[in-house]
């Protein structure tokens, strides 16, 4: 119900309902320069909604790390962002190689990123630990050969 807006290359769709806001982004897997566009747009929206800066930053950084992971490790995917009075959450779905050992991947400094990715400023093995640190809930559901679903939740103070 409500409205539906479509715009831009990311294929943004926004739905408003009594349950809150929903945004959908398509993240291309072959465009590193544009990786983070969805997170940037979400950050702007959260700011406009008047959500506390620290909360906005925590959620945006987590989402950005997740979006970058999608591009550098999994060939892109889709992001759904849900905003209501109590929390902001994001569901990141990709159809990449999956993560064989999530516990290992969560360790600071553990990375399978290529030299090329490192040259682009990523691959420190800090993304997932950062996401864990900044979110109130982080759920990683990964199946090798099928893909990964990451859910980030930050509660509004």
């Amino acid at each position: 119900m409500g409205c539906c807006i479509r715009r831009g290359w990311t294929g943004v769709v926004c739905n408003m309902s009594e349950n809150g806001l929903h945004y959908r982004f398509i993240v291309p897997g072959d465009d590193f320069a544009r990786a983070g566009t969805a997170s940037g747009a979400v950050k702007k929206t959260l700011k406009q909604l008047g959500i506390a800066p620290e909360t906005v930053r925590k959620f945006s950084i987590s989402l950005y790390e997740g979006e970058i992971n999608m591009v550098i490790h999994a060939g892109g995917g889709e992001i759904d962002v849900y905003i209501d009075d109590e929390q902001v959450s994001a569901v990141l779905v990709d159809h990449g190689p999956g993560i064989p050992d999530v516990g290992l991947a969560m360790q600071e400094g553990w990375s399978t990123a290529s030299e090329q990715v490192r040259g682009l400023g990523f691959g420190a093995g800090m993304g997932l630990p950062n996401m864990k640190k900044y979110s109130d809930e982080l759920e990683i559901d990964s199946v090798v050969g099928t893909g990964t679903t990451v859910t980030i939740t930050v509660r509004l103070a």
Partner: protein
Amino acid sequence: MLIKEIRDALGAELLSGEDLLDVEVHTACGSDMMSDVLAFVKDQAVLITGLLNQQTIRTAAMMDMVCVVFVRGKVPGTDIIEAARENGIAVLSTDHRMFTACGLLYQAGLDGGCL
């Protein structure tokens, strides 16, 4: 410390952000790895880096930073400068290498901001 004082301390060239020269900053972070920068959520206003791509500006914007200093004489292209402008981030370029640039700014009163 003001952004124009950072420019002067580093003998840097201002590539964007004339309007931000009088903005006051207290803390900085130096790294070429963006996830390292993103690991500290506390207010850090300046990013000193040798990494020159769109993600540098995106990372600074995610952190609500107001100034990016490119070291080793790196000069970003117009797309990067444009992205910085859109996000209200001043862009400086200095010939100093990372260690020296950080040292000079630390000496001039900028702080790491966290431990």
